């Protein structure tokens, strides 16, 4: 086990990294891989990664080892600072990484046909490859810095894929919205990482949560700081998993192609926040207040999403809120300390939802088949909610408006006013009248 595990572990991470390198470099040098070769590359990478992860799981089961750290050493090391690269194979990361490879492989195979001859075929698959790398890195991360790197890869690829159909303004606008929420989430995670680094001098999970295998770790962070770190992690998780109050980006993200919707918002990406909370679950044991906060946010999200899902008029939005209901329940389970249940819930929900999302484009066909089979129309389902609840659900809980009015608008107003003042000040210095934009005499190729 000791002799083979480092190679297997490295292979699991190296394969998606190589995939990004090959696909990205080919495009950057103006020689994008043809569709067939690109698909083969992806298949090879996913199958190799999956097999390596499965062999690792088998070895762990055979030898009874529950915690296999893979040390790749210090990526950067200077006095008082280390960027340590370490991956952990344990009862949390192994199922999650297997789920990642399994669903990404399924969706990759689906996308090969679904995206066939699409002008952005290569662009889609570059983002897809970055996503796989991000998911695998986040799942297996053994240090907070490594986790953060993977977390950012997932965020970027998600935003780019939401805006995939970039000739229309709506997907792009929604892509920017998703990116903005993700940046808030990233900032919270980065701050948590910095605080942990300061408290323990390390971002290593073993130093922060003890050497015991998941979920038996114990928080090694001082009790006063536990809540601060936990709250930052909860904020990061809320942004990534679209928990209340960040839920409104999830249906917006459905602008992307169906395969990306399936893996991102149905199966994997939307569970990443829950995964983060599971990884740091020993912190919840150390702070009852934090635990209550997690339960409350999970509960509110589940109730909100359940109500909202009932009035959606398009299948992908309905599925996205259905996903969110389950994610809210998973977060509640984590808060209640039911960690294995939460993990199993993630695995099951991810698989079911991927299937539903991939079948979504054929929904009408499915309905027709069913109606033909039973010989009559399917019963139409009423929303079954009261008028106020209906309005609340139709407006998606007014969360978009709340965030826009009370967070984004004051910030934008402040900076626009400052910009205006600056322009006036510069105009005064110049001795001219302030203008919003200057006319230029620059020539261009088009001129």
């Amino acid at each position, binding site marked *: 086990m000791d002799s083979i595990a480092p190679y297997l572990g490295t292979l699991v991470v190296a394969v998606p990294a190589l995939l990004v390198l090959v696909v990205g470099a080919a495009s950057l040098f103006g020689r994008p891989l043809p569709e067939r070769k690109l698909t083969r590359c992806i298949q090879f990478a996913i199958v190799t990664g999956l097999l390596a992860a499965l062999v690792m799981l088998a070895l762990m089961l055979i030898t009874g080892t529950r915690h296999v750290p893979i040390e790749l050493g210090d990526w950067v*090391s200077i*006095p008082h600072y280390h960027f340590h690269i370490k991956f952990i194979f344990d009862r949390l990361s192994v199922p999650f990484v297997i789920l990642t490879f399994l669903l990404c492989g399924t969706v990759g195979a689906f996308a090969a046909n679904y995206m066939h001859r699409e002008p952005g075929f290569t662009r889609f698959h570059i983002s897809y490859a970055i996503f796989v790398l991000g998911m695998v890195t986040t799942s297996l991360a053994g240090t907070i810095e490594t986790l953060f790197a993977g977390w950012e*890869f997932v965020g970027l690829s998600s935003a780019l894929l939401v805006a995939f159909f970039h000739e229309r303004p709506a997907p792009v606008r929604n892509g920017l919205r998703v*990116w903005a929420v993700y940046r808030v989430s990233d900032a919270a995670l980065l701050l948590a990482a910095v605080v942990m680094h300061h408290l323990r001098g390390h971002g290593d999970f073993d130093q922060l949560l003890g050497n015991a295998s998941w979920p038996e770790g114990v928080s090694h962070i001082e009790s006063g700081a536990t809540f601060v770190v936990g709250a930052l992690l909860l904020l990061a998780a809320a942004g990534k998993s679209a928990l209340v109050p960040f839920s409104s980006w999830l249906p917006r993200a459905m602008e992307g192609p169906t395969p990306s919707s399936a893996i991102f918002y149905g199966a994997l990406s939307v569970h990443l926040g829950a995964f983060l909370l599971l990884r740091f679950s020993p912190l919840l044991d150390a702070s009852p207040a934090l635990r209550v906060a997690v339960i409350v946010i999970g509960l509110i999200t589940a109730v909100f999403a359940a109500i909202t899902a009932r009035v959606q008029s398009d299948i992908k939005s309905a599925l996205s809120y259905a996903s969110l209901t389950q994610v809210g329940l998973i977060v509640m389970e984590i808060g209640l300390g039911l960690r294995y249940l939460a993990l199993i819930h993630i695995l099951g929900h991810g698989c079911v939802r991927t299937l539903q999302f991939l079948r979504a484009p054929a929904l009408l066909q499915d309905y027709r088949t069913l109606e033909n089979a039973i010989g009559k129309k399917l019963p139409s389902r009423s929303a079954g909610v009261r008028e106020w609840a209906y309005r609340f659900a139709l407006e998606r809980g007014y969360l978009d408006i709340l965030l826009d009015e009370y967070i984004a608008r004051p910030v934008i107003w*402040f900076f626009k006013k*400052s910009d205006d003042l600056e322009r006036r000040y510069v105009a005064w210095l110049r001795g001219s009248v302030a203008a919003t934009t200057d006319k*230029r005499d*620059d020539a261009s*190729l088009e001129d």
Partner: protein
Amino acid sequence: MPELLIPELHLPLIELAILFPLLGAILVSRMRQPETARRWSLAFAALSLLSTTIAWQDFIGLGVPLAHDHWDVVGEMFGRNVFAIDSVTAPLLPLISLLYVLTTLATLRTKIRRFSFAWTMVSMSLSLATFCCQHEWGVIGLLTLATLPPYFELQSRGKSTRVYVIHMAAFVGLMIFGWACVCIESKAPVHSLFAILPLFLAVLIRSGVAPTHVWLTDLYENATFGTALLFTTPLSGAYAIVHLVLPIAPGWVLQSIGLVSLLTSVYAGGMAIVQTDVRRFFSYLFLSQSSLVLVGLESVSHIGLTGGLCVWASVVLALGGLGLTLRAVESRFGHVTLTQYRGLYEHVPLLAVCFLLTGLGSVGFPGTIGFVGTEILIDGVVEVYPHVGAAVVIAAALNGIAIVRAYFLLFTGSKHASSIPLNVGLAEKIAVLTLALLILGGGFLPQPGISMSSKAAAEIIQARPAVLAPEEPHHEPEEEQSPHEREDHEQEAHEVETAPAQH
């Protein structure tokens, strides 16, 4: 170290690096054909780049904190070492030269007539000379001279020079006054605020720290993009801090003023989000990132300084690249505003990729050159400013949003119809790929760059007199230290023990 004992490089590489662009300036100023002038400028800039790169490698090979030229002609003339390179400047010189080479290389025919190659060569020579100059009055003189090329360009373009002149006059005046006071107080162990504050104000103006930053946005709006980029991106203001202010200013003054830089980085990040003009967007983004470099330098802690120096290199490379990308976009589509979706991706996909890569590289996205540097910077800043250090993270988040917003507005959201091909040419392709390789290469293999920055940071701290040292940040008691930290301390102790032997 006594001046005569400063180790020598194997060749007069520093002087050659400064001389080549100067010769180029003289030669191309006589040329009438802009295309010929561009080619000659490119050749001279490339020679200078070669010299700085070899000098850097030679410096690493010597393993010394400071080195000057072999056959030091300028040194002989002045009777002292005027030009030398140290751990801070050695890696920056090739980056600055590269920026000039790429700017010259990627100047399209549409820009070639209004972009002065002769002044660009003069500016390159002055920039390199400033970063190599070890004599304080020399640095002040060169920084003063460097303000002239943009002024002449603004004048030749018929633009208002008042904003630029007011700020640069204040910068030069305060710098000369401040350093004169420092010279008068040369025997005092600690200089008075009367000497330090004017110097500080001068470098803050030059660096564009709020509220003295308006000259920077004005310059970007009115000068050619290339000139504004080359004048600001090397961060001469930061060099003035390292060379003139850090050796004499008390830690508490530096850290207090660091707070102003910190606020500037957040403010400029927010301003970048609301801009409707692509040049103003870039200038605020640049301001935000360059302020982060200053925050690191002014933290006067080893980690903060290391982070600041790392981000400095990434700003030169990544933001320089982003500026070149925007310049290439302007060359094709004219003045671009951020008020509507442009949909340029289909015409210039390589520029779109380069925009995203350089933009995200500048804000420290994983896998790019700025990632680890930004992490170190945040760590160092939070150590010095525990309550407000988080503002660095907010600034980075705002900058990230601003970049992706600009990317979407410029390259996506609609279909741009054009009757002529707007593809990227070979010269631009070379520039883009060079930048991409450096940004990604630096991201995958960050250790050499970080080690150099760490070494330079240690030397900066060592060069400060003990009376100026700020209060040491709180460290954990010995029994709570992790094995890695203990190793660090042992390593440091070993370094201190062996230092006299090495030097």
